[in-house]
């Protein structure tokens, strides 16, 4: 269809404006309109976290090949032969188990941030996990998780009246028995845990006839609500699980006890089954490789090699499965671990607790690059020396909130408890750079103020476009466009404004990138 035709067919002639009675308006923008500008496509986006429990040895995961000789003496008890390493970015190679990651890298779906940590490293697994999940400073104990606070900001009334029409699905899902601390909100746990979705534990037991006017009744009412909510969520999970389809051939390489693959398969199935949950958390344990990190006979096998293969194979299968579903653009994955390991290996063919380590992001949205670099390993490195931090892990979190979830600035501050720099973790079209371009893109209305007619000009990328007129309280008064439109500049005539009373109105524009709006003043 040619553009001219297209515009004619989508003109506003068919829509008849509501007649608005004299209504008091205030000149201030309400929070509703701030939301309009920030929501958009980010609503459909999913984050999948993969926690590497125990502390992953980054230097044996991504190896600086230009310093191979120094490192091979510093870590002689765990080092991998140079000719076995897999090609990766300039001066960097991958552990031989990471064939899957190499494939994703070649496809532009893999990103690495080197040397991620936090100031004043704590070497306790518990404490450091608390810090990574809560996003606190080392010295502070924060009893909620960063995603729990994010979900709390989106769902301030949760769990009252959840699930509901707008939020029928769990707001987060941990694949396991216990909800990840990451999803712990300030008061409530912001989500659910589920393990075996083929054998969901059904909540049974209702309640007695009870007409008590005592406090017990209020408490009973609460319990019955939790019970109902839980059953409702389990029902939608079960429905999604039944509807989701897995292509077993994609996952064939994981059939040797790869528990992470089983978890990611559950996530894939639920996404395919239509679950709208935004956050999934999976985990893989045993990265605490103090000894026997590598096999004594074969440096390319051993505990760490197996874990990395599990990690790489399962994530690759997951990504291929999403590709087959056609939903790659909606899912971003990220790994994290409570710390990395020391630069020097120990005498037990292992490595001890360290600090900075690489984080991996996967998906079509990632900025397919390597952030950061390995510093030079000089000869005076001691047993207790660690890699220096180059990126605060909270910068990565902040970037995800800002670019992937499109969280407004002041909410980000409340969630992250401080301001952090951001990293460009997403490709242009996914980042808020795009949203910045979007903000600056054409949207104007003239004459403005108008009396009977006005012309609206706008630009859109190829996208479904919704344009509507709202009053200052956020009530939608008239739909102007609600169609798929090709990329281009458009000019549309707004007639019949005479039906509106004098006052300020909002023209809201929404496409797949975001929402924005302008004020239209009508004067008689």
């Amino acid at each position, binding site marked *: 269809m040619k553009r001219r035709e297209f515009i004619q067919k989508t003109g506003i002639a068919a829509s008849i404006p509501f007649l608005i009675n004299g209504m008091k308006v205030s000149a201030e923008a309400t929070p509703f309109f701030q939301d309009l500008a920030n929501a958009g496509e980010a609503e459909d986006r999913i984050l999948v976290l993969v926690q590497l429990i125990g502390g992953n040895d980054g230097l044996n995961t991504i190896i600086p090949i230009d310093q191979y000789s120094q490192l091979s003496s510093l870590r002689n008890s765990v080092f991998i032969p140079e000719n076995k390493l897999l090609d990766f970015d300039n001066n960097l190679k991958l552990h031989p188990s990471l064939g899957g990651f190499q494939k994703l890298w070649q496809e532009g779906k893999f990103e690495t941030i080197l040397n991620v940590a936090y100031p004043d490293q704590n070497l306790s697994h518990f404490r450091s996990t608390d810090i990574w999940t809560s996003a606190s400073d080392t010295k502070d104990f924060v009893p909620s998780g960063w995603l729990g606070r994010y979900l709390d900001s989106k769902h301030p009334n949760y769990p009252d009246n959840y699930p509901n029409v707008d939020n029928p699905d769990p707001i987060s899902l941990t694949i396991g028995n216990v909800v990840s601390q990451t999803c712990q909100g300030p008061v409530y746990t912001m989500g659910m845990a589920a393990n075996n979705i083929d054998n969901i534990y059904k909540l049974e*037991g209702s309640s007695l006839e009870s007409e008590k*006017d005592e406090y017990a009744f*209020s408490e009973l009412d609460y319990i019955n609500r939790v019970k109902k909510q*839980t059953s409702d969520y389990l029902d939608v999970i079960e429905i999604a699980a039944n509807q989701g389809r897995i292509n077993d051939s994609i996952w064939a390489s994981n059939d040797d006890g790869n528990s992470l693959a089983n978890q990611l398969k559950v996530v894939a199935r639920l996404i395919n089954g239509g679950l709208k949950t935004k956050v999934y958390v999976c985990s893989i344990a045993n990265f605490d490789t103090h000894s026997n990190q590598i096999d004594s006979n074969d440096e390319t096998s051993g505990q760490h090699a197996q874990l990395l293969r599990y990690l790489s194979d399962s994530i690759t299968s997951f990504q291929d499965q999403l590709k087959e579903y056609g939903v790659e653009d909606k899912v971003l994955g990220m790994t994290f671990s409570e710390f990395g390991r020391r630069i020097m290996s120990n005498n037990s063919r292992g490595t001890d607790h360290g600090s900075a380590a690489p984080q991996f992001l996967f998906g079509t949205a990632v900025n397919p690059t390597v952030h950061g670099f390995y510093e030079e390993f000089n000869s005076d490195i001691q047993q207790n020396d660690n890699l220096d931090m180059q990126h605060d892990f909270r910068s990565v979190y902040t970037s995800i909130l800002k670019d992937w979830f499109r969280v407004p600035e002041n909410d980000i501050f409340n969630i992250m408890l401080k301001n952090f720099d951001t990293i460009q973790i997403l490709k242009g079209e996914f980042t808020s750079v795009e949203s910045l371009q979007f903000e600056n893109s054409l949207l104007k209305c003239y004459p403005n103020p108008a009396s009977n007619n006005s012309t609206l000009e706008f630009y859109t990328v190829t996208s479904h476009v919704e344009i509507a007129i709202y009053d200052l309280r956020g009530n939608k008064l008239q739909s102007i466009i609600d169609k798929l439109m090709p990329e281009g500049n458009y000019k549309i005539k707004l007639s019949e404004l005479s039906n509106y009373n004098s006052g300020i109105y909002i023209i809201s524009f929404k496409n797949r990138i975001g929402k924005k709006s302008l004020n239209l003043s009508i004067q008689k």
Partner: protein
Amino acid sequence: MDRRQFLSISRLKSKQKNKLLDNDVIVNYSLSEFSGEWNKSKANHLLRRTLFGVNSKELNITLNDGLNKSVDNLLTIDEQLPEPPVKFIDNQQYDDGLEIGDTFINEPLASGVELQRILAVNSWWIENINTQSYSVREKMTLFWHNHFATKSDTVRVGRFQYATNQLFRENALGNYKNLVTKIGLDQNMMLFLNGNENITGRPNENYARELFELFSIGKGPQISEGNYTNYTEQDIQEAAKILTGWNFDYAGIRTNNYDIDFRPTLHDYSTKKFSKAFQEKTIFGSGENEYYELINMLFDQVETSKYIVRELYKWFVFYEIDDNIENNIIVPLAQVLRNNDFEVKSVLEILLKSEHFFDTAFIGAMIKNPVDFIASISKPVNLNFEPGGRRNFDPITIKYLAYYYNYFNKANEFGMELTNPPSVAGWDAYFQKPNYYRIWLSSVTLPARIQYLNQLFSNAGTGTPVPIKGSGIEILSDLESPNDPNNVVDYICEQLISFEITQEFKGQLKGYLVTEGLGDYTWSEAWYSYELDPENALYKASVEQKLNNLIVAISSLSEFQLM
């Protein structure tokens, strides 16, 4: 009746959807002695709030003894402390020099072994809870742990964890001022709140802050920067200086001496000046005695007595403390506490006998915490935590592991890891407004609780490495004529649920015992067969299965979450 069919009968009322509490509840605010009828409902209320779980023997004793004698007995603390925890598993890595059954609590600290020792302390604590006598001692031990919270994840020393726990048990109803004094000189607390790092010139305010905020006077509203009504930042700094010098040899592995003593060289001898909140009191740098002056100063404030009475109220009665309760209950009880030189028993003697405590408003109004929840099923069915049939293992090994996996770890799954509360403030359910006890129940923990009940009464048992199984037959041990299914239903409802249950509903419950379409005699026959030949596995299984299903059905009701 089919179980599923029964459970699908939903009669939820949707009143008060958006209201946290019903404002219309009329409550008796009198602290005078309860004068109403002494019946099963009131006796159960008293026992459920003071014990962990209740069995029929305790209920009958309480009914016979009447209110006064029962409360007096419940407030009697056995001076004999339980024997300490022991090495429970044979493993070269752990306490190699000890035999199974030997206690490790006098052994030097040993990293790598302490996690195992803490596990033993945890199992041992659970055993004490499970085998409690007719006394509030265990409930108060957990109260003090919640009040003076420490984390084993942070301290990681089994013998200190044990010592603190026994300190709470020993002082369960002791002198509050004395206990506050002692907890400041407790190794576990000192390590948890860095008291050992608090030395002159390099003060660490961690303990001083919690002493004010959580352990004694409590934080009031912030009225200006650094001023929390009841104390100021300056008061914390001055108190931290007073606390300098109290220390112990953490690395004293060779001497095996970890006693805390006062070390003059580490003490700040400056003069300490307190704010108007403490009438601008000055404490001179005299050394050791300053600590006791500091405690005196805190206990001279009326607010300190009110703060602990509120904590006790939330533990035993209800979370909501409105102006009426503050004025009519908290303030007078705080006066009682001061008049009795901070003997905690003096408060509970009045509270637990009062009209207020027995007001129907509070009966069944408390959501059980995870330990109360497990106890409320394990106690009536006399759950056995020493499962047999494991010839290769010492019975002590099995017992410790059974308590650990089936009780301690389940409570942990339900959100209450004993010895490891979320923070120094204890569990959120006792302070987090506005939801308080409700925090125990979420879309994760509520199904977990109900799944536990189902597993407990299934053929496979709890599904842990050392599984245990409940038997519904045990709950009938004191019932006079268990051959009558009506009696059985009445009796089990009474033991498990705090509310009256309608005859109609009980009729439905009876469907678990009698064959549909036939009469009560089907149960009576099954019971007689079992009674005449209890060794016959078929007869036993037949009644046990029916009783188990009935117990699961009743305990899966939302009402069972309340006490």
